[in-house]
């Protein structure tokens, strides 16, 4: 009953106050973001000040944390979004609830869903968002910056042979990433071969025997707060795995890479640094370390 009343009120308010849906009439001044990657993109494009509402997961950059919240990205609150009177609502295709998105449109809001399921999609999303804000130049600048980061990584790791990688995103039980996952793409770009790439699902529960059989050369634990010392101990009984034998078990704070946003260039660099540390060694440490050349490790 109250829901019907609310909708009736909103429709009449909208009809009275919003001067039509003329597209391109005015650039959006109040934006609601329904995903952390969108929030980050908006800030990166310089439009952080136009954000009227973000999700509870939007924590980068720091200013985003102070912005008013409209729910989490799986479940945004319809009322909270509408209450912010946005000119534009941006969500993520496949993640934002499509039913809610349609509801918002019916209430007169302009809703755009971008796709960020792979890296080229992420770049396209940046381009679309920039266009929506009438700021194609900023968009291209951001894209160029990211492209440069990617190129830098590619250049550095070019001489090195690929390494098989196990990416761990959860324990008890072991959760890894499959082929249809942008993290898998990042691993490939970083010079690694995701051992679980053949899996159809984006996230999967991986039995230990598969890990042993695939014998990864690098293990990256992207869980929360895992510590270096304990990581090695966790794998200590499976010394047939090259990564364990050679001590290439790394823990990595998950924030950046687990977000398909504009920081993926940085995430890529960090991943590459873990997978091919010898390609990123500084001149001083090069003198100290054994592997002071960026090439395939000795068998």
């Amino acid at each position, binding site marked *: 009953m109250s829901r019907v009343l609310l909708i009736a009120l909103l429709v009449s308010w909208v009809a009275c106050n919003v001067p039509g849906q003329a597209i391109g009439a005015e650039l959006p001044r109040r934006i609601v973001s329904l995903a952390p990657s969108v929030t980050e993109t908006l800030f990166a494009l310089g439009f952080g000040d136009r954000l009227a509402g973000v999700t509870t997961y939007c924590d980068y950059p720091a200013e985003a944390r102070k912005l008013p919240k409209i729910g989490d990205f799986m479940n945004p609150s319809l009322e909270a979004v509408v209450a912010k009177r946005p000119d534009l609502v941006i969500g993520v295709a496949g993640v934002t609830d499509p039913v809610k998105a349609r509801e918002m449109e019916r209430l007169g809001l302009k809703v755009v869903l971008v796709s960020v399921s792979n890296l080229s999609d992420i770049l396209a999303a940046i381009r679309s968002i920039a266009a929506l804000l009438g700021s194609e130049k900023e968009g291209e600048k951001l894209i160029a910056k990211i492209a440069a980061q990617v190129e830098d990584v590619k250049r550095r790791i070019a001489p090195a042979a690929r390494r098989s990688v196990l990416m761990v995103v959860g*324990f008890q039980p072991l959760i890894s990433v499959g082929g249809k996952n942008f993290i898998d793409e990042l691993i490939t770009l970083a010079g690694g071969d995701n051992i679980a790439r053949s899996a*159809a699902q984006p996230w999967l529960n991986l*039995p230990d*025997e598969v890990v042993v059989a695939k014998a990864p050369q690098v293990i990256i634990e992207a869980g929360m707060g895992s510590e270096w010392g304990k990581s090695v101990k966790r794998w200590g*009984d499976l010394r047939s795995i090259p990564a364990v034998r050679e001590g290439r078990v790394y823990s990595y704070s998950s924030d950046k890479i687990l977000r398909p946003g504009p920081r993926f260039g940085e995430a890529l660099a960090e991943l590459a640094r873990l997978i091919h540390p010898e390609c990123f060694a500084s001149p001083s440490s090069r003198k100290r370390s054994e592997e002071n050349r960026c090439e395939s490790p000795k068998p």
Partner: protein
Amino acid sequence: MKVLNRRKMIQVNGVLFLLLILSVIGCSLLGPVPLDLSRAFENLFAPEPNAEILFRTRLPRVLLGIAIGGGMAACGVVLQALLRNPLACPQMLGVSGGASLGGILGLIFFPNWILPIGGGLLGEISWVPLAAFLGALLSMVLVYRFSLFHGRLHPYHLLLAGVIFNSFIAAIIMFLNSIVDFYQAQSLLFWLMGSLSTRAYLTVAFIWIYVLLGFLWLWAKGLSLNLITLGEETAMQLGVEIGSVQRQIFVASSLMIGAMVSVSGMIGFVGLMIPHVMRLIVGSDHRLLLPASFLAGGIFLGWADTLARLLLAPAEVPVGIITAFFGGPFFLFLLYREGRKKVAL
């Protein structure tokens, strides 16, 4: 007059035990990755992939599966007797809900705390199963308090208290699921659906000792269980100290369930299906039904876990899904049978 005697006990349990051994072997040999058996045995203590696959990844989880399958089945048998309801299962006590909640809280707040045992010499236990076990104990005490009247545990109250408790816990878990971050939610989900993934022989041994002791304690009550199924008053009149036996069964099975769920998450339907199947095969005398169900439960879960590893290789399907896959239709079949017969089977 056909009655239970030593010969039948040995025959039935002997056959099942043999099948159990064969299952341990079979399940250890099967899996999503090919195994070179000779190389595995040649390199028993060396860091060699085949040896590690067989002895460090497969064998522990097969052994764990056998223990948990057996424990769940045994608890199912005694709970069906205690609640005098052939459709009862271990999940109804509320203990597994408490264990799940404890484990999830552990997963959220301190997933990487590790408790060294014996000063680190005997290995380590993660805080998560400990938190789960604490949750189990707490819910056991709560459900107990709400069902205990005049020194007796009334089956009706026990059932109600357990079901309500579970619903409440489920609501809390769903709430937690909505506030944790996306990746914790994935962990949570897999944990709730059960997994026998383990490499720690220490954990396996611990569970084995626990489950075996619990099982033996319950098996000793076999005759009382028969009498209890006739009704509380009848059991009293036939010589059962009903209050004491009920309490013992409740505590023993709660502790067992708590320990099992805290290690492997929620694996349902084993405690419901296996007692029924075994009752059809060996009869309702609990002195035989209990050990037979224990062994059969182990065999079932061992193979269910193997299927879990094979079905969507390289990914592992949570074993709770496999058991539910068998259990759901089985449950419907049971209801259908019940409708046709006068007595609930």
